[in-house]
């Protein structure tokens, strides 16, 4: 194969591998429908649809309120703690919804820590319950909203920053008060950005397995899991997965389309950033609470609970099992990070080196994995590996089903988009004239990649590896299904302990997941600090 063909074919070859599990899942729609499907259709499918619908609506409303109001508060007002809140408001992103769900039940169950503390402080009887039960759909709405609102916060904040001061001042001169400027002018103007963030939240909500399983809510993901592991019917599980995949596909397309539509912001040379009003007294306290409460519920409270649990078991958690699942997690995430970064580097290079509109269009499809629920990916991957074993490797003495290959491949498909976004933005900063000079001086292809691009993209490559690692560490359903027998990661350990209601033991792996999840938050908070407008 000559060099030209290699660089042109690479994105297509990767696309085939990335979409194969999804196509296998979708192909089940055209297969036979078993009795289990009729049973599901008659008795539980409506429950899956209705609870998923209620979850999506509830979470959407709450994240819209939390995300936009906090973003407006930190961009429009100056108050005590504002500089910290600007970046601290994204901290809940480091806590996966299932870990918040575990800590919520630990806090708010009948004999949970919050109820115990309240009874102690108020000198109440043991039968009295202050905080309501959270093991229901409303509890799930709160859990998802307080872990996912940063998606809306991030896009809203950056859109509010880009709104011009003169526009808001004109609105005030025309008779609008501060609140009216927010909901009649500023909010409608950032609608496209907010919708993009909201679509991500909805996709994450529909993809979750750990939190809804813990709260025993019947959704598509729990249904897929039970159909497979309870009824041992992978065909019906795939048919259910297809319905969920098509639903997520709609939100994925909606999210992609909002990227093209511009945010209505001032882009002229006379643009002046919004001026922050200084707040004092009860107004400052209100602004402080608006920002503090989401951080408290979404980050501080679960962290305190996890630390208390870990403290209660002393250092017992630091055992052989914890060390081996930590090593497993770190090695898997590091390998995935390196594969993703390497692929993203090669594909972005191929697009730059041999530009073609077709290749560019197909390459953007490679990021589709981030929208696909881990559970669906796992279902498709198992089938794919079974086919590969049966058709390609049957003559050899090799079986890849149940090995780490499928798990790593699923991780790569799911997290490639993260690596790609980092490498893509790194490439945007390298002038094409450097490539021209390199070619004229005799360095093209691999030589240009290794001697010019890789050294200049060092930071982007490192960032992409870290971003992928922090996401892999959190991934639960794909790991649960695709892991080899007796192979545990931190997420799996947390899930197993929590499902056995051994919360104290679940604390250590959960804390480790949160700590690793803080890595991208550090990068994001740096970006947030550097994006502050100058007056």
């Amino acid at each position, binding site marked *: 194969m000559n060099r030209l063909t290699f660089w042109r074919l690479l994105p297509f070859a990767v696309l085939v591998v990335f979409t194969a599990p999804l196509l296998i899942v979708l192909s089940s729609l055209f297969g036979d429908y078993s009795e289990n499907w009729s049973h599901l259709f008659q008795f539980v499918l409506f429950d899956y649809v209705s609870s998923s619908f209620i979850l999506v609506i509830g979470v959407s409303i709450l994240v819209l309120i939390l995300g936009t109001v906090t973003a407006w508060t930190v961009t429009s007002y100056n108050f005590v703690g504002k500089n910290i809140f600007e970046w601290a408001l994204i901290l809940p992103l480091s806590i996966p919804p299932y870990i918040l769900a575990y800590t919520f039940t630990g806090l708010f169950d009948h004999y949970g820590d919050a109820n115990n503390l309240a009874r102690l402080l108020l000198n109440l009887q043991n039968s009295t319950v202050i905080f309501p039960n959270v093991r229901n759909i409303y509890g799930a709405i709160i859990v998802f909203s307080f872990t996912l609102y940063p998606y809306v916060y991030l896009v809203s904040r950056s859109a509010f920053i880009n709104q011009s001061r003169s526009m808001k001042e004109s609105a005030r001169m025309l008779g609008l008060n501060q609140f009216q400027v927010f909901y009649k002018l500023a909010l409608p103007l950032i609608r496209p950005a907010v919708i993009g963030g909201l679509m991500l939240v909805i996709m994450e909500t529909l993809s979750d397995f750990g939190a809804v399983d813990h709260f025993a809510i019947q959704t598509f993901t729990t249904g897929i899991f039970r159909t497979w592991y309870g009824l041992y019917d992978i065909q019906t599980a795939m048919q259910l997965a297809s319905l969920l995949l098509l639903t997520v596909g709609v939100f994925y397309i909606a999210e992609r389309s909002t990227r093209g539509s511009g945010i209505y912001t001032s882009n002229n040379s006379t643009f002046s950033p919004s001026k922050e009003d200084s707040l004092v007294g009860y107004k400052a306290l209100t602004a402080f609470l608006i920002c503090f409460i989401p951080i408290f519920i979404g980050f501080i409270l679960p962290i305190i609970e996890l630390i208390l649990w870990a403290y209660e078991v002393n250092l017992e958690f630091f055992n052989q099992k914890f060390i081996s699942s930590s090593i497993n997690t770190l090695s898997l995430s590091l390998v995935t990070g390196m594969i993703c970064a390497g692929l993203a580097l090669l594909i972005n290079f191929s697009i730059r080196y041999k530009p073609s509109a077709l290749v560019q269009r197909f390459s953007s499809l490679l990021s589709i994995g981030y929208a696909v629920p881990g559970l669906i990916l796992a279902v498709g991957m198992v089938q794919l590996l079974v086919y590969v074993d049966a058709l390609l490797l049957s003559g050899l003495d090799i079986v890849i089903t149940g090995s780490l290959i499928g798990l790593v491949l699923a991780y790569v498909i799911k997290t490639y988009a993260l690596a790609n976004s980092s490498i893509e933005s790194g490439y945007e900063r390298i*002038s094409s*004239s*450097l490539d*021209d*000079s*390199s*070619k*004229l*001086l*005799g*360095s*093209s292809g691999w030589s240009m990649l290794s*001697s*010019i691009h890789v*050294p*200049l993209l060092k930071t982007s490559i490192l960032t992409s590896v870290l971003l992928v690692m922090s996401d892999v560490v959190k991934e639960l359903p794909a790991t649960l299904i695709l892991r080899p027998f007796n192979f545990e990661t931190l997420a799996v350990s947390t899930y197993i302990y929590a499902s056995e209601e051994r919360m104290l033991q679940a604390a250590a792996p959960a804390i480790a997941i949160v700590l690793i999840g803080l890595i991208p938050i550090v990068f994001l908070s740096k970006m947030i600090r550097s994006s502050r407008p100058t007056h």
Partner: protein
Amino acid sequence: MSNLILEIKNLCHSYSEHALSIENINLEIGSGDRVSILGPSGCGKSTLLRLIAGLEKPDQGEIKINDIKVSDNKNLIPPEKRNIGLVVQEKALFPHLSVFENICFGIKKNKDKDLIASELLNLLKIDSLKNKYPHEISGGEQQRVALARSLAPKPNFLMLDEPFSALDEDLKETLYKDISQVFSDMSSAILLVTHDRNEAEIMTNKQIRMEEGKFL
């Protein structure tokens, strides 16, 4: 005319269906010739250089370098195989390499690379910058480094695309003098693209005017 280094016949190129950027260009440059193409911004000068360098493919016509056909509408010999030097306005120095490493970039496999680089550093009066990085030196110094880097592989044809336009007038005068001296000591053919008539007259001995993709 001396030995032909560059021969262009009926060259046409457009970036889109409706915009013809180069129209029926014919040009011959011999060994040691110093030619400039003068014209306003957007007239197609830089596109012509990119076509000669092999960074773009022509729609029609052909380009020969040292009597070898390097481009027509079917075949394209890649830039790295043409032995051509190109210096551009934005210098395009590799930011992660020192001045010395930038100069050696195109002659990595040459066992005399240290000697060649030292000679060029001396010739272009940038010896003291040897270990500095591009961001640590001035625009004029960067342009000298870019020129040294292009000259290191000893191309028999060197192209310069508005190399001095981002520099101030005093600096330009010094560079014209120094670089003209360097050019007069070498046998390479030079093709300069500029919109500055004064620069064209000082640096080259033949000027061609170009407008709207055509030679006048």
